[in-house]
Every structure is written in structure tokens, then in C-alpha cells.
């Protein structure tokens, strides 16, 4: 079965990202595949490279980056939501005249169309949020 995941909350603030991550691991562990994990609303905060995770707690963003690399899973931050919240890749940095980009490894920034596409192509969409 092909799954699409949506994460609507930021790291640490809410368990959504943790639950989505654990669910994603279980999906792969059981032999299914993930077409895309789409981060929307505050979910885009999962994709900033500037996170300094607490020493005694889990590293939410890093975990996602590693997961993406190990299993070749597509992690997408919504560009509109990312703009509002200050998460930029190099292309958006240049296009909007900003002095820095801060996208974490394993993530890419793209449009809402990627969410809709995932929903069309996946067998199941699972939404993690408040």
C-alpha cells in the first residue's frame, strides 16, 4: 500500500511530528511505501536546519532528515506556509531578497500541488495534527 502523510504541527510544540515519524517507520517496516510526507501550517518548522535539539530529548528534525536519506522518502514543506514562517531554500532566498536560507537536509520546498498530487496517487492519506 502507498501512504501519503501530512504533518500540520511544528516539532516539540505538539506530538504530531513524533507520531507521524513513528507511523512512517512502521509503514516502511511493514513493507509499505510512502509517496510523500507533506508539511503544512506550523509543520514547516520541522524543516529548519537551525534547530539545536535539547541534549536530553529527541532530535525531531534530524530524525526526519535521516529517515528521508535512509528510505528515500520525499519530505516537502509547503512554500506558502514556509514563507509565512521564515523557512527558505536557496532559490526562495534569492527570489525574495533574503540574506539566508535555512532548509534542513532531506527536505525540499514546493507548492500545495504536491499535497494534492500525493492524495491522488496514494492509497491512503494520513493527517497528523491538532
Amino acid at each position, binding site marked *: 500500500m502507498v501512504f501519503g502523510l*501530512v504533518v*500540520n504541527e511544528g516539532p516539540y510544540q505538539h506530538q504530531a511530528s513524533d507520531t507521524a515519524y513513528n507511523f512512517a517507520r512502521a509503514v516502511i517496516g511493514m513493507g509499505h511505501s510512502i509517496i510523500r510526507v507533506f508539511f*503544512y*501550517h506550523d509543520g514547516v518548522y520541522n524543516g529548519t536546519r537551525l534547530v539545536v535539539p535539547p541534549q536530553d530529548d529527541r532530535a525531531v528534525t534530524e530524525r526526519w532528515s535521516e529517515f528521508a536519506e535512509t528510505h528515500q522518502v520525499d519530505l516537502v514543506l509547503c512554500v*506558502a*506556509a514556509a514563507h*509565512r514562517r521564515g523557512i527558505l531554500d536557496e532559490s526562495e532566498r534569492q527570489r525574495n531578497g533574503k540574506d539566508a536560507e535555512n532548509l534542513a537536509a532531506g527536505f525540499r520546498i514546493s*507548492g*500545495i*500541488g504536491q*499535497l*494534492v*498530487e500525493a*492524495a*491522488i*496517487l*496514494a492509497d491512503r*492519506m494520513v*493527517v497528523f*495534527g491538532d
Partner: protein
Amino acid sequence: MSGYRKGRELIVKRFLYVSRRPPHGTIYGHEGLEVIFTGAVFDQMVTVLFLDDGVYQLVKDQDPGALGFKNYALGFRALNELGVQAICASRDDLTARGLSREDLLVDALLLSSFEITDLMENQDTILSF
């Protein structure tokens, strides 16, 4: 949109977007509407449903300009033209909040809880904001 295919068949799914939160206090309604707008060009079968405090998003004569907020709910009026099949709202949730069809800024289909269950069972994908 040329569409997505499974083999030679164009994929057309029944999409339900569910909104359960009131407008303006949080961004979910506004950003939710942005997904509905974008999704509208993908030629799928789209229904939008307002439940719980989400019904407040449909109330007419909102004036968030005094707060510097965008009056995004006016965008719900464009949904039918964009090919959204129906805008639905829970009749019970409206009534519980002292609202009726006359208070709404669009002509919404008011559904009972049985009809809502039925609607949800007949979808391929449900996205909630």
C-alpha cells in the same frame, strides 16, 4: 491539468476537505482554503464540509479588517465556480451555535450527522484542517 493516470485511466478521486475550527483565531481555516483552491485545478470530485466551530467560518459579514486580518472567508464564494461539488455544514453544529442558513455567506448544504457519516464513508480521501 492533464491529470494523473493509472494505466490509461484518468484518476478521479472523491476528496473531502473538513474544517472544524473557527476563523481568524488560528490560521487553519485560511491556509485550509488555500489547499482547497489549489486542489480545485486537479479535476477531482471535491466536497467541503464544516463541522463543530468550523461552521463559524461561513458566517456572513465578518469584518476582521479592524484587526488587520484578511477576510479570507469571502473566498468560499468562489468555490462553486472552481468546480467544488458542494459546500456542506453540520445542521446540528449550526443550531447548537444559534446559527441558521440565513447567517451564512454561501448557500451550504445542511447535513444531519447520519448524512455526514454517509458522506465521509463515500470519500477516497479526507483532509482535515
